[in-house]
């Protein structure tokens, strides 16, 4: 058995689960803030096996889901321009904007939208289409932002004049702070996102324990990673000594990845940013620095962040804060299904509503 498969070894997981069942004697509401964790907890069956005392809450960990209504309206406006080609990760295609529009419907209306696997692929689209401006939609957390920053640097090296990024990247720690500052969220502990942490390291989370006395564990995505993180959390709560524990040391250095952070810092600067459901959070987003203004789609003439009303009836905002379970939303599995999604949490495969729907464990 190789070292990776061992992290889902049934015998080992069962033994950890038994220990967790024995030790989790007080109520624990934990939140994960990473779409990959959401999917893993459902897909592995862990959610249905957890002790009755432990409640899994899925938070604002899906970048597509937290992209604000105004940001969606902004890129849909841009997609209408004849001289623009939108390049995007596939996740954004069906995210609904005002009046039921999405990139998918924009495409049907004649917009040019190219799905790319990597932002680098968007550079090739730009090189092949010199008469148009290729706009890559920069959505994602700290895992993704360095890749987009490196792509902007490459665009400059390649002297590409028709490549720009619409930068809606967001930062995880400010969102955690906003959740804890809200007295209604009742979060006892966090499981922290493994690949965001691979970039930022452990230090940016210190405030969770220091100021809010909430224990948290950086962990990976296999069942063993998640079970061991929960055991660690239970132990910290018993000892009354909350801390930030890095349990994903095979990938995450406590200091993160300083090279990736340097690239990100060279190209982007933090600003206050809008999150769906969470509103305007201080220092929670990234914009392109003046030095790279020529690659900033936000600086194209006429591009604005329009006011956009929340989607009618959609409770994604409450779901993203963990205040409402997806199946408590009146639209869930009625007006809102993966085939007919009303809000982004049902669109994205990493969204809490989509995961609930797919696995339907609590219905």
């Amino acid at each position, binding site marked *: *058995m190789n*070292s*990776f498969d*061992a*992290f889902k*070894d049934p*015998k*080992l997981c069962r*033994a*950890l689960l038994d*220990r967790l069942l024995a030790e989790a004697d007080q109520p624990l509401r934990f939140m994960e803030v*990473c*779409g*990959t964790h959401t999917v893993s907890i459902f897909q592995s069956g862990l959610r249905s096996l957890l002790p009755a005392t432990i409640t899994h809450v899925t938070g604002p960990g*899906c*970048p*597509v889901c937290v992209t604000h209504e105004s940001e969606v309206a902004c890129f849909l406006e841009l997609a209408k321009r004849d001289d623009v080609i939108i390049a995007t*990760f596939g*996740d954004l295609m069906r995210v609904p904007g005002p009046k039921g529009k999405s990139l998918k419907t924009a495409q049907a209306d004649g917009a040019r939208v190219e799905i790319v*696997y*990597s*932002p*680098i*692929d968007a550079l090739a689209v730009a090189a092949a289409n010199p008469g148009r401006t290729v706009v890559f939609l920069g*959505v*994602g*957390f700290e*895992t*993704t932002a*360095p*890749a987009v920053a*490196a792509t902007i*640097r*490459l665009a400059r090296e390649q002297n590409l004049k028709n490549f720009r990024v619409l930068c809606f990247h967001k930062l995880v720690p400010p969102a955690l702070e906003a959740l804890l500052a809200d007295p209604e969220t009742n979060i006892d502990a966090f499981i922290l*996102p*493994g*690949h*965001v942490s*691979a*970039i930022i390291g452990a230090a940016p989370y210190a405030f969770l324990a220091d100021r809010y006395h909430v224990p948290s564990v950086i962990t990976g995505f296999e069942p*063993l990673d998640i079970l*061991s993180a929960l055991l660690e959390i239970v132990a910290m709560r018993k000892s009354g000594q909350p801390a930030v524990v890095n349990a994903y*040391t*095979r*990938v*995450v*250095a406590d200091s993160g*990845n*300083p*090279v*990736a952070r340097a*690239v990100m810092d060279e190209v982007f600067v933090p600003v206050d940013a809008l999150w769906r459901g969470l509103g305007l959070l201080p220092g929670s987003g990234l914009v392109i620095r003046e030095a790279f203004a020529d690659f900033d789609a936000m600086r194209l003439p006429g591009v604005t962040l329009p006011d956009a009303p929340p989607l009618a009836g959609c409770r994604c905002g409450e779901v993203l804060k963990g205040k409402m379970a997806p199946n408590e939303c009146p639209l869930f599995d009625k007006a809102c299904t993966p085939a007919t999604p009303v809000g982004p949490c049902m669109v*994205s495969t*990493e969204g809490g509503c989509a995961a609930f729907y797919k696995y339907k464990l609590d219905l």
Partner: protein
Amino acid sequence: MCLAVPMEVIAINDKIADVEIGGVTRQVRLDLIDAAPALGDFVIVHAGFAIRRMDRDDAMETIKLFQEGLGLELI
């Protein structure tokens, strides 16, 4: 979206590496990695970039600690 996959480095050419997992090969950029990988290393790949070298010894050590802690035989 932060999905990232461990892939094995099979060739390195300056800032680009060929990586492979389960018969699938891709090219990834090495601009962001903080420790240069060697052939045979596993790197964590996200959106066409290698973002970290995976420490296999550390992975084995973690498993071993669990097995010992839980009184299980080594697998």
